C-alpha cells in the first residue's frame, strides 16, 4: 500500500509530475505529504486538496491507501 498523490492543471505543470506515490508508516497531514514529496516547492497559497474525492484542509490526516490530489482553483462551467 501507499498514498497515491495526483496533481492537476497548472499545478501539475509547475510540479512537473502528474502523480506521486508516498510510502508512509503512519497517518500524516496533507501538508506534510506535499512537503515530503516536493521539499523544494512551497505549496502555492491557493492550492486545493482533495482526499478520496472530497475537499480537505491541509491539516487533514492522510492514511495508507488514500488518494490525495492537489490542484489550483477550479475553472469549469
Amino acid at each position, binding site marked *: 500500500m501507499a498514498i497515491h498523490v495526483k496533481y492537476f*492543471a497548472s499545478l501539475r505543470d509547475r510540479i512537473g509530475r502528474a502523480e506521486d506515490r508516498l510510502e508512509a508508516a503512519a497517518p500524516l497531514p496533507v501538508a506534510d505529504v506535499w512537503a515530503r514529496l516536493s521539499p523544494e516547492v512551497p505549496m502555492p497559497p491557493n492550492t486545493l486538496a*482533495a482526499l478520496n*474525492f472530497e475537499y480537505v484542509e491541509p491539516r487533514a490526516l492522510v492514511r495508507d491507501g488514500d488518494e490525495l*490530489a492537489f*490542484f489550483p*482553483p*477550479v*475553472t469549469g*462551467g
Partner: protein
Amino acid sequence: MRIEIRPEPFDPLAELRNHQARLAQRHRGRYGACASFIGTMRDHNEGDAVRAMHLEHYPGMTERQLEKIIHEAEHGWPLLDALVIHRVGPLAPHDPIVLVAVWSAHRAAAFDACRFIMEALKSRAPFWKRETLLAGERWVEKSSAG
C-alpha cells in the same frame, strides 16, 4: 437525476429534448417549470482573443462532487429532476461547455435550484480550462464571478 461528463461535442437542446421525453413518461403534467442554463465557449476572455480551449478534469471526483451538488439542490428545493452535462477535452469557440436543467412544479424552485447547481459547479467541480490564445497558451486562473 443524470450527470454526464462528455469527451466529445454535445448538443444541449437535443439532450434537453431527450431527457424531457423520458421525464414526461413518469411526470407528464406534474412539472410546470424547467429552468436551464447553457454555457458556451466564447472567442474572447479577459480582453484576449481565444482560439481554442482544453478542459481538464479529475475523473471520479468530478462525478462525486456533481452528485453532492445535485443532492444538496434536491434537499433545498422540491425538484422533479435535474440534468447536468459537462464537456471535457478540446473545445473550439461556440462549442457548448455545460448544460444544467432543473424541473419542478413551480418556477421559483426551478430558477433557484438551476442557479445553485451552476454556481456550486463553478466553485467546487474539479474542471480546469487551458486557453489557446493567438500567441501561446494559458491556464484560466480563476472562475469568473458570472
